[in-house]
């Protein structure tokens, strides 16, 4: 079972078209679609770190902030979780917005000083160093939660989640033990923008989240396809016999 905590309207279900203005331009967009998507569809670029079009938005990184409302009663909101509404007045690049984004990047830079992506994004916004204290100079995780959401929403397994609260928050398996739910697919490692999640593959064994997974070779060419567990998971959701998955896609 896939367990959703997100509000559906925050991303996909399209409402009726409404008018709103972004950076002074009047546009039409479906009501309740996220402001981020509305802006991007109309050519207004907004930087993001924790947004992924195939995942529900959870608003972790705050880089996507925009200003809504009319001077002097404006408000800063996450565009990835804010719904498009009739008559909304949105600024994607006002001085307030840029300042907020620089602050977010400065904080992220302090958290993960060695993360390439963060360095680049910060530089693109004119942020080259941080006034804030770095706890762990080797830290790479920005707590975007893409791994957690991918595992839960796309893989449909939920083997990892956030543990604790800041400043000690981290991605972990329950009780920091080998997860019995994990199928070894590696989607979390793949989606991570900073390559935080370690996994190794040698002699037909993939190791991830502290657990070893036997890899299934292709019945025809002998190349490894995926962990046996993952193929069994596929067999379970498709209802096909697991042997159907023992031939790699090149040999089919």
């Amino acid at each position, binding site marked *: 079972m896939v367990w959703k905590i997100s509000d559906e309207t925050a991303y996909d279900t399209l409402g009726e078209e409404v008018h709103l203005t972004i950076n002074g331009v009047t546009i039409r967009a479906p009501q309740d679609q996220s402001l981020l998507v509305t802006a991007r569809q109309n050519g207004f670029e907004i930087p993001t770190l924790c947004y992924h079009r195939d995942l529900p938005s959870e608003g972790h990184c705050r880089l996507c902030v925009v200003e809504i409302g009319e001077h002097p009663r404006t408000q800063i909101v996450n565009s990835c979780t804010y719904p498009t509404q009739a008559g909304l007045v949105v600024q994607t690049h006002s001085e307030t917005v840029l300042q907020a984004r620089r602050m977010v990047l400065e904080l992220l830079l302090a958290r993960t000083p060695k993360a390439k992506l963060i360095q680049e994004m910060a530089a693109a916004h004119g942020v080259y160093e941080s006034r804030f204290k770095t706890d762990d100079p080797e830290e790479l995780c920005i707590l975007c939660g893409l791994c957690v959401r991918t595992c839960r929403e796309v893989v449909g397994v*939920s083997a990892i989640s*956030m*543990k604790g609260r800041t400043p000690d928050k981290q991605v972990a398996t*329950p*009780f920091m033990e080998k997860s019995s739910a994990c199928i070894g697919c590696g989607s979390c490692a793949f989606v991570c923008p900073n390559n935080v999640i370690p996994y190794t593959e040698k002699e037909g064994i993939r190791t991830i989240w502290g657990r070893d997974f036997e890899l299934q070779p292709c019945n025809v060419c002998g190349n490894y396809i995926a962990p046996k567990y993952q193929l069994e998971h596929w067999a379970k959701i498709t209802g096909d016999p697991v042997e159907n998955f023992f031939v790699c896609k090149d040999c089919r």
Partner: protein
Amino acid sequence: MDLPRLEAILSRYEGESWDLIPVLQDIQDAYSYLPKDELQVVSERLNVPMTQIYSVATFFKMFSLLPKGKHQIKVCLGTTCHLRGGGRVVESLSHRLGVEVGYTTKDMQFSLETVGCLGSCAQAPVMMVDDKYFGRSTVDKVPKILKLYK
């Protein structure tokens, strides 16, 4: 595992995913911590993945995954208590009990933790033992308070 004891708690709820926090609170009260096996049953009954339970259990300070002592000592380090010497009270307790903040004494009598504002700033510094408040709990009162529970 004492299943009937857990059943008694679960039977008070509908078994929906949003019952998670109240169920965990009841388990915490009854067991003084959240035992892993019990959480496994909760996960199945409420249809909430273990990952989510672990997230919630590690997020809120009121939950503990390790057994707690017979008495819970909470020292307030909210703004007012902090300014009125709450920190020294923690130190003194920690020293006298031989236990660090967040841990339980070896004899399982006391767990020591710090909390945010307890809502009694006029009495600062404030500490609590179980459900009882101790206002103006300066360092010299610490031994007297502890004596009540030994």
